[in-house]
C-alpha cells in the first residue's frame, strides 16, 4: 500500500503538535514574586493553598532588587507575570504605587495593624518585622556589641554584608545607619577600610559566616537565629545603637488578571493564621498582639532605628552610587 503523503504530513504535524503540548501549560491562578527564602516562601504558599484549596499559587524567589528588575523587564516586554508582591520593604512598594503599578485594596484585616505599617489607601500592607543586626561565628575572637565594633582591628578583613544592589533589606539598612548621628557614611567608609566586603544577599552572608570564611556579618535576624537552633555555630546580636527594620509588605499589581485571588492572598498573610505561619518560621509578626518567635529578646528591648521613607525614596539612586563607590558594584 502506498502511503498518501498528505496524510503522513498531517500525522507528522499532529505528532509535532502533541510533543509541543507535552510541555505543561502552567495553569497557576496566582503568581507570587517574593524575596523570602525558598523554604519560607513554600511554607507561606502551602498555608495559603490549604486555606484556599481552589487557588493554585506559583511563586518566584529572588532578592528584592533582582525581582523588581525581572518585573520591570516583563512590564517593558508587555507581559508582567506576577499578581502579588511580597518583598522586603515599603520604599520599593511606595515607588511602584507612585508609578501607578499597584492596585488599591482595603483589607478587612487592616484594623489589627498599627497605622504606620500599611498604606492608608490600601496599596500595601506590612506583614512582619525583619531587623538587621550582627551575626558572628562562635569561634570568633571578639563578641561584637555595637556596629562600631565591626570597625575594630580585631574584625579586620573578617566582616561581610549583603549588597544593597542584591537585597532590599540591605538598602534600607544602609539608608537607616547612614542617617544615624555618629555613624553616617563615615561608618561605611571605615568598614571598607577595615577590609569589609559586600556581596550577594543575606543568604550569602549567612553562608559565609556560618562557614567561617568570615567571622562577622550584617544580616537579617531570622536567618542566624533559625540556623543557631539547628546547630550552626553562629550567634546574633542586636547592636547597642539600634537595628534597622524592614516590614516585608504585600501588594497587588494593577496588571493582575486574578484580583480576587490576589485579595484573598493579602487577607491570608495579614490574618491571624497567616501571621502565625510567619511566627513559626521565626519572623516577628507585624499584627498586633502576636508573640515573638523563639530566640528573640522581648520586643521592648529591640531598639528599631527610624527611617524617613520619603527621603529614602528620593536618595536611593545616590545612596546606591555612594555604596558602589566604596564596595564596588555587585
Amino acid at each position: 500500500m502506498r502511503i498518501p503523503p498528505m496524510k503522513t504530513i498531517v500525522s507528522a504535524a499532529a505528532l509535532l503538535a502533541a510533543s509541543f503540548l507535552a510541555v505543561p501549560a502552567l495553569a497557576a491562578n496566582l503568581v507570587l514574586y517574593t524575596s523570602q527564602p525558598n523554604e519560607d516562601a513554600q511554607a507561606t504558599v502551602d498555608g495559603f493553598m490549604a486555606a484556599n484549596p481552589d487557588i493554585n499559587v506559583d511563586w518566584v524567589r529572588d532578592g528584592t532588587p533582582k525581582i523588581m528588575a525581572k518585573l520591570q523587564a516583563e512590564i517593558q516586554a508587555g507581559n508582567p507575570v506576577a499578581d502579588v508582591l511580597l518583598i522586603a520593604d515599603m520604599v520599593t512598594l511606595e515607588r511602584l504605587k507612585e508609578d501607578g503599578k499597584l492596585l488599591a485594596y482595603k483589607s478587612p484585616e487592616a484594623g489589627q495593624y498599627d497605622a504606620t505599617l500599611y498604606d492608608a489607601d490600601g496599596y500595601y500592607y506590612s506583614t512582619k518585622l525583619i531587623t538587621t543586626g550582627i551575626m558572628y561565628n562562635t569561634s570568633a575572637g571578639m563578641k561584637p556589641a555595637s556596629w562600631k565594633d565591626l570597625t575594630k582591628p580585631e574584625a579586620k578583613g573578617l566582616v561581610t554584608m549583603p549588597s544593597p544592589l542584591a537585597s532590599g533589606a540591605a538598602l534600607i539598612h544602609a539608608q537607616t545607619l547612614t542617617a544615624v548621628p555618629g555613624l553616617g557614611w563615615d561608618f561605611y567608609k571605615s568598614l571598607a577600610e577595615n577590609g569589609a566586603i559586600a556581596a550577594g544577599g543575606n543568604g550569602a552572608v549567612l553562608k559565609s559566616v556560618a562557614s567561617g570564611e568570615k567571622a562577622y556579618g550584617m544580616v537579617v535576624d531570622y536567618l542566624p537565629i533559625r540556623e543557631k537552633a539547628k546547630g550552626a555555630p553562629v550567634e546574633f546580636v542586636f547592636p547597642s545603637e539600634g537595628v534597622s527594620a524592614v516590614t516585608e509588605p504585600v501588594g497587588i499589581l494593577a496588571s493582575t488578571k486574578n484580583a480576587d485571588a490576589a485579595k484573598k492572598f493579602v487577607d491570608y498573610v495579614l490574618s491571624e493564621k497567616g501571621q502565625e505561619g510567619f511566627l513559626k518560621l521565626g519572623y516577628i509578626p507585624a499584627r498586633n498582639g502576636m508573640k515573638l518567635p523563639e530566640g528573640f529578646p522581648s520586643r521592648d528591648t529591640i531598639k528599631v532605628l527610624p527611617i524617613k521613607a520619603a527621603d529614602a525614596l528620593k536618595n536611593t539612586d545616590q545612596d546606591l552610587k555612594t555604596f558602589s563607590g566604596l564596595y564596588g558594584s555587585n
Partner: protein
Amino acid sequence: MHGYVRTGNSQPAWLFPFVVITVLILSVLPLARLAMVGIAAFANGGVLTVLGDPSVWSATYYTIVTALFGTIISLVIGCLFAFLLTLTDITGKGLLSFFFVLPMMIPPQVTALAWVQMSGPSSPLLKALSIAPPLGSPQPLYSVGGIALLYGVQHAPLVYLALRAGLMTLPRDGVEAARLSGASSLRVFRDIILPLSLPGIIAGAAISFVSCTGNFGIPAILGIPASIFTLPTLIFTKFSAFTSRTFGDVAVLSGIIAMISVAGLMIQDRALRGRDYRIIGLSGASAAFELGAWRFAFTPLLWAILFFMLAAPFSALVAGALVPAYGVPLTFKTMSLHAFEEILFRQAVTRTAFVNSLSLAAATAICLLTVTVLAAYALTRRRDAASRIVSSLIEIPYSLPGIVMAVSFILVFAAPIPFLHISLYGTIWIILIAYLSSFFAVSLKPVVSAFHQLDPALEEAARLSGAGFFRRLFDIIVPLIAPAAGASVILVFLIACNELTISALLWSAGTQTLGVAIYNLDDSGSSDLTSALSVLVVLMVVVMMLLLEFLAKRLPKGVVPWRS
C-alpha cells in the same frame, strides 16, 4: 559513494525550502536581530557609554584570562587521558573513559558547588575529617585560579573526545614501521604520534576555549562572591539591574563574547592550515604502546585524578546535603535527611523544575530529531554550495556561547510578535525555541554521520519500484538510521536537561529549569537544599549515561561520545 549521488528529483520539492526556513528562524533571525540592536547602539552612541565602563573591560580581561588558563588545564588533563586510554594497554579503559567524560555532562554550577563544599573553612567534608582551614581563611576557589581550574575540569572531556577521535585514525603501520627500524617508544610518540595528533589537540583546545568564554555556572558561583565578573555574569547582573538601556548594553556585551569566541575559532583555523595530514594504510591505534612497568605509575595516577575530579567533590556535595545547617560538622549524630525530604516532598519548585527540564529536553530532542532527519537527508543528498551554507548556519548558534543566543532571542521576542500579539517573553516557549536553536547542531551530527554510512542504492531501488518519499523515509531510511537517531535524542536530552546559561536569562514564574532552581536555591542561602537537589541531578545524569552505555552496542561507532 559519489557515484550514486544524483541531482535528480529524488527528494520532494518542499524539503530543502523547509530546511532553509527552519534555519532562517532558528539561526539567522536571532543573530540578525542581535546585530541590528548592536548597530543601533553604535549609531546612537550607546556603544561608547558601554565601552567607557571600566567594568566591561575588567570582565573582558577576566573572561579571556580564565578561558586561557582553563583551556591549558583542560589540555593537560584531556591529553593525558586521551593518549593513555587510546594508545596504551592500560586496564579498565571503559570505566576510566566513562568516569572521565562524566564532568562534561554535569551542570557546571553543580561542579562549582561541589568543589566549594570540598574546600574552604566551611567544607562539611573537611570538617568531618577535622582538617578544615581556620576561621577567616578565604575560600581558595573564589579566585581567577579557582574559576580556571574548574573550567579545566569541566572541559577536559571535550579535549579528550576531540583528540581521541583523531588518535583513532592514526596509521598503525607507520608506528610499526618505526618500531621495526628500532625507534624507541618515546621517539615514536614524539616524531610520529604527536605531530599527527596536533589537529585533534588544536580542535580540542578551540572547543574548550569557546566553552570557557561562554560558561555561566562556574563564574556565577565562584566569581560573583569575589567580585570577579566575566562577560556572561556581567550580562546576567545587567539584567538584574534592569534599566531602559539594558537591552542595548547586553547586545554590545554579547557581541564582545561572540568576537572572543570567533577569534578563538579563527586561531584554530590558522593553526590547522597546512596541517592536512592524509593518512594512508591501516588505521586504528588500539594499544600501540605496551606500558609494562609504567602501568603501576599511570593507572593510579589516572584514578587519583578521577578521585579529585569526581569522587571527592561528589562526596562533599552529599555531605553538604546531609548536614542540618551550614557550618555544622557531619557526624552520624548530626546527619539528617531533612534536605532531601524538603526538596523532594515540600518544595513545589523541585517538581516544577524537573517537569520543565525533562519536558523541555524531551520536546527539544524530539522536535529536533524530526527536523534533523529531514535536514540531514536534504544536506547529504544535495552537496551543493547552498547546502554547505545551510550546514554552517546550523553550526553557528552551537559554537556561540549560550548566553549570546539567549540575549538574541530576548531581543527577538521582547515585544509581542507583530500581528499575532502573542508575547513569548517570560513563557516556556522562548526557552524551547532557544534550545532548538542552540542544540540543532548537536542533534544533526550523529544523524548526518549515519546518512553518510547509508548506501543510497537501497533507497534508489525503492524509488525505482515506485515508493514515494515518505514511504522510503519510514520503511528504509528511518530503520537504518534509528540507532544514530536514538543517540541524537539522548545526547540532546542530556545536554538540555542540565542547561543553565540560556534558561538563567529566560526563566520566569513557573518556567524554572533544574539549572535555575539550583542556582536560585544557592542564592537564597539554602545550601543544604542546593546540595540535595544537585545530588539528585548528578544521579539522574549518571542513570541517563548508563542508558546510553547499554544502547552503545547497537549504535554506529563514534555516536556515544565516550566509547570508541
